[in-house]
């Protein structure tokens, strides 16, 4: 399927477990982003990547790890999940630095940490 996909769409995990959220895009966009969305906080940037093997922290990176070995994939790992990481996670991509104002979002992953 063309576009940007996320898996799983829903995930329930326990405190302390490691969980990985997947993001895949078919456009060969350079930039990819991970956000979390919580009531009262809007979209907050966790990590972003300008290209394969180039990643950088966003506003709320603590407790998360990312990698980008291939342009099309940008997995987000919660190393030891906490209840405060219960949220909706969105992956996004943009074609280039010049067009970074235009981001394309995935459908989101609803994560619950019990």
């Amino acid at each position, binding site marked *: 399927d063309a576009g940007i996909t996320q898996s799983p769409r829903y995930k329930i995990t326990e405190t302390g477990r490691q969980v990985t959220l997947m993001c895949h895009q078919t456009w060969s966009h350079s930039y990819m982003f991970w956000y979390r969305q919580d009531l009262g906080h809007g979209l907050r940037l966790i990590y972003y990547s300008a290209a394969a093997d180039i990643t950088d922290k966003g506003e709320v990176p603590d407790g998360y790890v990312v990698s980008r070995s291939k342009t099309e994939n940008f997995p987000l790992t919660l190393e030891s999940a906490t209840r405060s990481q219960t949220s909706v996670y969105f992956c996004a991509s943009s074609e280039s630095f010049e067009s970074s*104002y235009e*981001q394309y979002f995935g459908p989101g992953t609803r994560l619950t940490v019990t």
Partner: protein
Amino acid sequence: QKEVEQDPGPLSVPEGAIVSLNCTYSNSAFQYFMWYRQYSRKGPELLMYTYSSGNKEDGRFTAQVDKSSKYISLFIRDSQPSDSATYLCAMSSRTNAGKSTFGDGTTLTVKP
């Protein structure tokens, strides 16, 4: 204090009304001003963007940017029930390494 402030609403209007959604910001380096629409349980989608100051119109939607006041607006004319969604403003600058800063979103309901 947040770089981008947006009234969360909720905002409820009758069908056919003119809707005004607004954001203020503090970072004078912002050059790109975007509006995203997010339907319930979906990802945001870009509605329109404006570079620097001025107005931009796209069908029933008009985006305005006033950089002197650090204030942006989105107007929706002849609002429809299908416009019911959360609207997020977002801003970016060339110096911000490709990142955008989002407002918290305003939830709009258009009643038939």
